[in-house]
């Protein structure tokens, strides 16, 4: 749960953003994040809220870590956690 999942902002409507997580679109609230976010920015999602904007210079590293996790074997605990978050977003996506 502490891990969160990174995604890219596609649209912003006031305090709600439509965010793409590896092809899954979901509405994410922007109330908590303490720096202004724009379309194209990457954010880290925690339980439906962006908890921070991922600084440009670390986007590549962050995404490759998650890609490695997503590509890990089915019974891998950490990979399963990230896949579970994405699956939950897919099932419950408002977008």
């Amino acid at each position, binding site marked *: *749960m*502490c*891990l*969160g999942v990174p995604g890219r902002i596609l649209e912003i409507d006031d305090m709600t953003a439509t965010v793409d997580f590896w092809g899954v679109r979901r509405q994410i*609230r922007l*109330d*908590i*994040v*303490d720096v202004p976010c724009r379309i194209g920015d990457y954010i*880290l999602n*925690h*339980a*439906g*809220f962006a*908890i*921070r904007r991922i*600084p440009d210079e*670390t986007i590549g*590293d962050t995404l*490759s*870590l998650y890609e*490695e996790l997503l590509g890990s074997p089915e*019974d*891998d*605990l*950490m990979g*399963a*956690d990230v896949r*579970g*978050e994405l699956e*939950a*977003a897919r099932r*419950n996506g*408002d977008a």
Partner: protein
Amino acid sequence: MPDRLGEAREVKFRDPELAGELGRTLVSLVDDIDRAPITLMHVCGSHEQAIAKYGLRATFPKALDVIMGPGCPVCVTDAPEVDEGVWLARQGINVATFGDMLRVPGTRHSLADAQSEGGKVHVVYSAAQVVSMARKDPSQEYVFYATGFETTAVATAAVLLSDPPPNFSVLSAHKYVPPAMEVVAQNPASRVEGFLAAGHAATITGYGLFEPMAEKYGIPIVVAGFEPLDILAGLVELVRLVRDKSPRVFNAYPRCVSREGNQPALRMMWQVFQTSSGVWRGIADIPDGNLRMRPEFECFDARKKFSIDASVYASEADLALVKDCICGGIMSGLASPPDCTLFRNRCDPQHPVGACMVSSEGTCKIWYEYGGRPDLSEAGRT
């Protein structure tokens, strides 16, 4: 049963050169201290997952013992708190919670039991989702069974502050980590000489929060991210502070964490929640360790809205197996999963006895899946 214990996996770092340098620095700092064990505690399920998954323990010097403390919010949810959710579900009320909570044992029953009896227990991914469920179905009551540390409590608070419908309420089992670290620091039986604090929680709370604690207990605290390199870098700083007998706070995750944290988020959290003392499963009564809703939010507080009476379950307790579970000792840093006679024996992820085997952030489950402390003699590394 996968037996991966003792298997020292190859660690894959994106920057092997930096990893090698950090590893060597760690060895030389531990050599400087020249005694064993040097015990450091982290308090984050994601830290333990990364340490175990990437086989980091195999790269640590032998004298360095890095253990997981009370870093799994699901694991520390006490049985009577689970009972409250079970009671609500048995009254026909919709109870929605995170997937990890489902199989956590209550005194006698889990939420999964309540669900299989026909109770309306839903797995959700955010509090906001429960609000939409409640809006779509105004004739029914929806309770969000809220678990998680500071970071998750902020999300719950934000939802409560954005005008939820009257048929929505929250059963808060949110926990606040810093007081639990203090309990560990105070425990005379504890060998913990330094804390590695969780990066994402500190994104919200700021690292300044730990400064009074470091000073009061004379213990260094380093905030670290959860990528393998972040963890190594954090440990290097922490061991350096131990060597220098310098009980300070160091921010090893500056790209995400500031001293003051996320002030708007903290304001939201403290507007809705206040701390209260309460039992963390198996560990202790932690003063200020629980986050309960303030009286102003009474109309959304499931404990106030429904007269929950979960005491009925207490008398039904079947403690035969549970009494051998040492989750509490593990989370206090006094024991490791292999010290439990049930580990891999009568307790596994399919048949969990304690909450530490249920949650993907629980030490027992992580050690079951990835192995724990590697046997370096087997790997030819001693």
